[in-house]
């Protein structure tokens, strides 16, 4: 299972529409980093609207994706995190601290534009 990554100007957009099993999550991490490297994208929006569960393993992968993307020069915004998912992350003691978030794709893009001063 592969998660499609779209390029739009200097940004990469991706919507996670599948149940995130471990393989899919790792493959996504690889694909995204490669794509950032290839395209020189400055910003990435990862939309999690359809994701019903984030356990500690997936949270770690998402956190790693954010950090590694920044090392490659791309800012990441996570969008559409469901309230139930946010609450379970708090119970797990994982705040995804320091990771920029926004309500939806549109606001995520807006946030990136502001951060990048475009």
């Amino acid at each position, binding site marked *: 299972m592969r998660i499609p990554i779209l390029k739009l100007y200097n940004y990469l957009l991706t919507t996670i529409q599948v*149940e995130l*099993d*471990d*393989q899919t999550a790792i493959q996504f991490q690889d694909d995204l980093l490669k794509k950032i490297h290839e395209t020189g994208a400055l910003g990435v929006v990862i939309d999690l609207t359809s994701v*019903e*569960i*984030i*356990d*500690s*393993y997936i*949270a*770690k992968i998402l956190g790693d994706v954010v950090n590694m993307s920044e090392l490659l020069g791309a800012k990441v915004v996570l969008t559409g995190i*469901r*309230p*139930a*998912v946010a*609450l*379970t992350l708090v*119970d*797990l*003691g*994982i705040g995804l601290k320091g990771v920029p978030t926004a309500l939806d794709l549109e606001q995520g893009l807006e946030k990136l534009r502001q951060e990048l001063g475009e």
Partner: protein
Amino acid sequence: MMMKNAPSRVEIHNEWDIVRARQSGRDYAKELGFGNVDQARIATAISELARNIYLYAKPGVITIEVIDDQGKKGLAITAKDDGPGINDLRQAMEDGYTTSGGLGAGLPGVKRLMDEFDILSEAGKGTKITARKYLR
């Protein structure tokens, strides 16, 4: 949908079994009448316990069953394996303690996600964790 009177038993051998176990837990939680947030809590707790079996002690079994304790209804999740056991339970329950480069959030997280949490573990014999959540 089938009535969930009988317990569900999911053997954990590989990572797809983790997904199956948590989906089964969500189905039970939904049918019992748990709200959205508690459904996510229960499914997440199962995911953590199943993943621990997969990483440290496979194979093992996740059992999901309805409890009705004198009208107090809920769901009990049991994770059982015959793996290496956990040497220092107190340490394993600490936030951030991990032997696998994880976040060390699983076990303390399950305790907070659920209402009751019991853990029994013996070195060389295995681990049995039971966690319960009640309808309010």
